[in-house]
């Protein structure tokens, strides 16, 4: 996706400032004030020196007017105090605005992530998304909190010093200001050079994030294969690449900086020669010379900082491109503007009408027709990769079919609101994903206000109550990410309890009991038959014992239904199902 020019990135940033703009302008105003003060405060200490130390009337003043000294000293202290307060207020204003915007953008990006469809998640690596929401956002924060402030400081200091100098003496001032275009050219060249480096650096950071994240998530596999050394070598590569990119970026700055520094250092030299000659020729008084020399820093420092400011700006620019990309990404699966409002329970009548579905141009479901009546229990079986999981993922609309339609209670699900649709579906996925939270919190995932009694009831239905209650902290036990610490069967049962607890009108169990022992599975089936709410059940399983009591069994092969009927019908048919039964029963059908 194209993320546009730098102007559009700044435009994006300005848009984010909405609601904070006035405060920000206030911050900029304060910056101007304290910088002007920074130029004028030295005047007061100069006054003391002139009046009481080096001036012609110094001795006289001290003797006759010591109060003036105290007044002047007090003025100096007070002005500094005021200035530092203004600096503090300005800094805090920038922090406030930048944090507000960080907060706003971060939350919005998260909302974006929450509403992306599954194909988005298939495209982006976890580590990369994490980089966008952390490192990249921090670059945006830094832009608002620091880069802009420094820029304002540079402009104000340079601008006011330049004006002041021009008023003092045009000739000398012009000679000093000649350095400015040189600096502009240098920093401009630097900016062009460093720009692609920040983009590369940002990529390396993302890759390192990904390498770390996958190593942590895959720690069991790493240990199992004793691949620690390989992982370390792999990480070393990411670490080295990042380090290299970082050095390259910094060293680019350090290559330019001595030149910039040298140009800035030319200012006192120019002043000495040009100003000196002017003094010799009587065109400049020594007072004017001192005025020039005490404020040369106000020209030199902005020149020095400008490059650094631009450097940070490029970092922002590279990072913001990634953020804007995320911000602009629109899911393909969205609610229609005129989506039907259906807040209540669904009947649970599901129709697949000539449904085809391809993923990455690979056809997975081909022209499939299926009708599941409310309250029925159906089973889907088939070879690995035959499309079972893809098929059921079309029901909660994780993906849209490429052709045909899925209808629930007679309505095309594309006309429904996703949230209302999904609230009606209880899904227990194959790949059990639990959260690092209490067991209670995991089961109540679908409704955080779920009463505890309901959590317990469905834990029992899922045959999970016994083992949960045996845990030292029972339902309050914190389970690790992905439910680690629990056995496979235990995880599956919690996942099942989670799906049941929302009392869905459609329950989809995708191989949910594969790791559960037979006896427990029997109990689970028993409770599934006796649910207190009406529910259409779709079960994917490999074990005949899990599917034989279904009202209808569908056999899927290459994305098409090849057999369909009850257990007895299919056994009588002597097809794939019959073979399955035979295999699992040790030859007895």
């Amino acid at each position: 996706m194209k993320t546009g020019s730098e102007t559009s990135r700044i435009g994006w940033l300005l848009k984010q400032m909405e609601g904070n703009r006035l405060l920000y302008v206030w911050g900029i105003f304060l910056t101007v004030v304290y910088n002007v003060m920074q130029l004028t405060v030295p005047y007061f200490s100069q006054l003391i020196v002139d009046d009481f130390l080096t001036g012609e009337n110094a001795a006289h003043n001290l003797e006759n007017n010591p109060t003036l000294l105290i007044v002047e000293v007090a003025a100096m202290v007070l002005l500094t105090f005021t200035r530092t307060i203004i600096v503090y207020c300005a800094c805090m204003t920038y922090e406030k605005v930048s944090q507000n915007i960080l907060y706003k953008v971060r939350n919005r990006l998260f909302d974006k992530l929450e509403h992306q469809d599954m194909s988005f998640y298939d495209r982006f690596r976890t580590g990369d998304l994490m980089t966008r929401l952390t490192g990249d956002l921090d670059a945006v924060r830094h832009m608002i909190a620091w880069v802009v402030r420094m820029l304002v400081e540079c402009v104000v200091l340079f601008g006011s010093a330049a004006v002041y100098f021009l008023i003092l003496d045009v000739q000398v001032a012009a000679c000093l200001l000649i350095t400015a275009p040189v600096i502009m050219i240098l920093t401009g060249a630097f900016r062009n050079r460093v720009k692609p480096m920040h983009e590369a650096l940002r990529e390396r950071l993302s890759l390192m994030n990904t390498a770390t994240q996958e190593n942590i998530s895959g720690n069991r596999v790493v240990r199992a294969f004793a691949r620690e050394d390989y992982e370390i070598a792999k990480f070393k590569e990411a670490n080295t690449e990042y380090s290299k990119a970082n050095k390259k970026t910094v060293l680019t700055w350090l290559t330019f900086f001595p030149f910039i520094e040298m140009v800035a250092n030319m200012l006192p030299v120019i002043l000495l020669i040009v100003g000196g000659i002017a003094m010799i020729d009587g065109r400049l008084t020594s007072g004017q010379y001192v005025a020039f020399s005490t404020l040369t820093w106000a020209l030199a420092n902005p020149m020095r900082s400008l490059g650094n400011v631009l450097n940070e700006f490029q970092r922002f620019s590279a990072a913001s491109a990634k953020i804007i990309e995320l911000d602009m990404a629109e899911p393909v699966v969205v609610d229609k503007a005129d989506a039907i409002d259906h807040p209540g329970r669904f009947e649970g009548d599901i129709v697949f009408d000539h449904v085809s579905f391809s993923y990455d141009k690979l056809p997975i479901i081909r022209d499939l027709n299926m009708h599941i009546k409310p309250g029925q229990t159906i089973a889907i079986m088939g070879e690995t990769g035959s499309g079972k999981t893809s098929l059921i993922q079309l029901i909660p609309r994780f993906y849209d079919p490429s052709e045909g339609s899925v209808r629930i209670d007679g309505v095309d699900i594309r006309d429904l609101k996703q949230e209302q649709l999904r609230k009606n579906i209880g899904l227990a996925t194959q790949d059990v994903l639990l959260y690092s939270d209490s067991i209670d919190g995991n089961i109540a995932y679908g409704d955080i206000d779920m009463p505890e009694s309901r959590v317990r009831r469905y834990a029992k239905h899922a045959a999970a109550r016994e083992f949960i209650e045996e845990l030292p902290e029972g339902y309050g036990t914190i389970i690790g990410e992905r439910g680690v610490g629990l056995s496979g069967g235990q995880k599956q049962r919690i996942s099942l309890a989670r799906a049941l607890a929302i009392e869905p009108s459609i329950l989809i169990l995708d191989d949910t009991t594969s790791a559960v022992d037979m006896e427990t599975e029997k109990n689970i089936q028993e409770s599934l038959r006796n649910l207190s709410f009406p529910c259409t059940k779709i079960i994917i399983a490999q074990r005949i014992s899990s599917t034989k009591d279904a009202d209808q069994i569908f056999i899927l092969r290459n994305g098409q239904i090849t057999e369909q009927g009850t257990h007895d019908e299919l056994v009588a048919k002597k097809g794939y199902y019959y073979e399955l039964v035979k295999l699992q029963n040790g030859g007895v059908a």
Partner: protein
Amino acid sequence: MARNTYGQDEKLEKPFDFRHLLRASVYIKKYAKQMICALLLSAVAAGTGLLAPMVTQHALDVTIPEKNKQELVLLGAMLIGIYLVSVTFSAVRSRIMNIVGQNIIFDIRRDLFGHLQKLSFQYFDDRPHGKIQIRVVNYVNSVSDMLSNGIINVILECINMVFIVIFMFMVDVSLSLVVLAGVPVLMLIMGYIKNHQRRAWQKVSNKNSNLNGYLQENITGARVTRAFAREDENEKIFADLSGQCREAWYEAVKYSNLVWPSIDNVSVGVRAALYLVGLLVIGRGEVTVGVIVAMTSYAARFWQPILNLGNIFNNFINNIAYLERIFETMDEPVTVDDAPDATLLPEIKGEVEFKNVCFSYEEGKPVLDNVSFSVKPGESVALVGPTGAGKSTIVNLISRFYNLNSGQVLIDGQDISKVTLHSLRSQMGIMMQDSFIFSGTIADNIRYGKLDATDEEIKNAARVVCADDFISAMPDGYESEVKERGSLLSQGQKQLISFARTLISDPRILILDEATSSIDVQTERALQTGLNAMLEGRTSFIIAHRLSTIKNCDKIMYISDGGITECGTHDELMAKHGAYYKLYTAQTVA
């Protein structure tokens, strides 16, 4: 130890001290030469820089009043020369120090990551993964400047200060004391700020860590969120965590931003005191005008390094919070490690023996209670029994993923706690319930089991597990890119790929923990034929609930209540009419 969640701050046990910096010196020492070199360069640059005001002074006092234009130009040229030297030296110093800084964080990151590789499952099980990640990536980045330029600058500024103090005392003792009186005042202020600041930045690191933990789980769990239409709830939680980050940051900068203005004020206060004390208290005559002028200029020079130190100090306080976290992770004890006198386990023949093994994950909750069994080389052993009975635990102990409470696990008669982990695990092929796929190509994922595997070997392994067909049918075949969460593959397909990954490693002992649960029965059957040929002569352990999978094993052990309750061949156990019999008959459909 209690597990940590996104909603929980990680408590830091250790109190703050500068020993963390001392500890960091291990990383810095390596670059001592460069650091000293940089110090010298800086000293030369600073020394040369001192010449500049002298030249200017001479020009103003002598050259200009004498109207000597030629000399003026000459002095200008000298000034350029001085600046050239000083800029060049500082530039070289900056280059050196930036490379050192990058190298230091490279080293820290390498060690941190290396240490993570040694930590047990438990460590990863006990906290959100995003919280570990943020330490390796973000926190390490934060400390780079502190450990390179920061330290050099502290040294330089301190030297600078010492010199100025000496000069000051040489000029006037009593006025010097006035200047130095500002120091304790500043100390008091800084002491107050520091306490708040440190806690505030720790909070920032905690809150960021929480946010990262939550974010990562949410990206990984996107499918579950969608399935339960939990988006709005999650957004609320995230907004809350995000808000906490904002508050914590704002609170922290409230203190950090105080440092600089405080120094500024104290320094101006000192100057004011100088004027008042010098002029009014001591009075003209006692001290000359020149002394006061000199003292004010020294005072300014004295406070400049302090101002710089203040900035460095700020940086230190902010980043020490991160350094603490990094070292905390590095200090995490390695529970399962090579014994000091560990030997290499020779090629495994395949005899496995458990001798009175007791094991528990948590104290007081034994999972295995005095388990003993032995397996002959080449035997295939099935473990069956109710979920949570300890089947996975037994196979995990063979690979020494955990330490025993008591008893021994022997392979070929050798206690596995006395051999190196690498020599042990590299000979085992373990396939776990959770088949993790790395992002990369399918071929890469299979190759993970044997890094130098040829394409042909990869294809062969895939063929044995019946994965070749579906892989070849994909648009890019074995080179198809898969992602960690990638839904391009079904769970069964992922299992087949990780199966191929296990097989290609040519393990001496094969452990299949529910490895085929998501694979259909027919594929599994086909797979077994290939597998049997491969496994000839190798010991294998299989955990499966589908009993058709394990019927033909040499030995079937029924695990329940922390031990082995039945053991024998299928026929023997069937004849026994015990728990296995019940299980088996329940599975066969009448």
